């Protein structure tokens, strides 16, 4: 069991789920700790998509707050195993009232995933470890609830408020 003492938000890397921005551009990078059952995260997601930024998504599921957050995270990671993380991410946030297993399978079917593989992957140690890694990085960085945003500025993470970010970027 890794330690949970304070540590900075990890720098985004190729192991992260990243979307937006353009190669060679100076698009701001925003790291979002979120969970798929959190309605505030869904609302934030809509707003983030309006901004010219690169979003890094990290899981922060808290079971007693959102009992289906972990299974939903597993579904997103399993879709990611077949290269469809962001599509599943969008489908999950698109209908948070339907996060039971049959709904997750239905989404996998919609995306044309290998259902047998999807179900195995979402329950796998690798997927569990991936979600746990994100969660624990958030705990170490002082994340206490979702959604929580950090801007990656000059090689360092800075907590950021979405409204302030929108104002700075001229969006929202």
């Amino acid at each position: 069991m890794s330690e949970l003492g304070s540590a900075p938000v990890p720098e985004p890397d190729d192991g992260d789920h990243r979307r937006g921005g353009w190669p060679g551009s100076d698009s701001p990078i925003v790291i979002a700790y979120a969970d798929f059952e959190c309605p505030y995260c869904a609302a934030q997601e809509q707003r983030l998509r309006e901004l010219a930024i690169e979003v890094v998504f990290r899981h922060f599921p808290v079971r007693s707050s959102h009992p289906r957050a972990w299974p939903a995270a597993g579904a997103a990671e399993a879709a990611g195993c077949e290269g469809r993380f962001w599509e599943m991410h969008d489908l999950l946030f698109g209908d948070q009232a339907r996060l039971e297993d049959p709904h997750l399978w239905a989404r996998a079917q919609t995306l044309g995933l290998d259902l047998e593989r999807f179900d195995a992957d979402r329950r796998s140690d690798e997927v569990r470890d991936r979600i746990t890694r994100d969660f624990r990085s958030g705990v170490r960085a002082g994340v206490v609830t979702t959604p929580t945003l950090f801007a990656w500025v000059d090689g360092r993470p800075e907590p950021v408020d979405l409204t302030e970010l929108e104002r700075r970027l001229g969006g929202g």
Partner: protein
Amino acid sequence: MIPAGSSAPEFTLKRGDGSDFTSADLEGQTTVLVFYPFAFSPVCTDQLNLYEEVLEDFRAKGATLYGVSCDATYSQTAFAEKLGVTIEQLSDFEPKGAVCRAFDAYHEGGFAQRALAVIGPDKVVRWSYQAPSPGDLPGANLIFDALES
């Protein structure tokens, strides 16, 4: 909030079953007292949910967490059951806030401050923290920093 290095005061809190949890129960274990303002309030809800999520990590560090508020035991029990958290709740209902006051963790508004105390097996406070305001939620990382130092 009572400073680190202080001996924990003598106190009596009520467990959910009505029995006493006293300062004698601190002996021989590392205790984390999580003082929180109100059962069912939003920040308190987030706080217990978060700490519950990493409870196994606390246990691995040999620490036992207890939630402490001025709510009655019935309220605390309902709160914990609603959240599905297993962190034991201890009530400072009567005399109201007496233990919170003893730890200097009582808000004059009539509720516990949002505060934390790590107490060693020798009943000495190893670390304490009070949030800048009751609306601020201390991250679990702060408790682990104290446990790992």
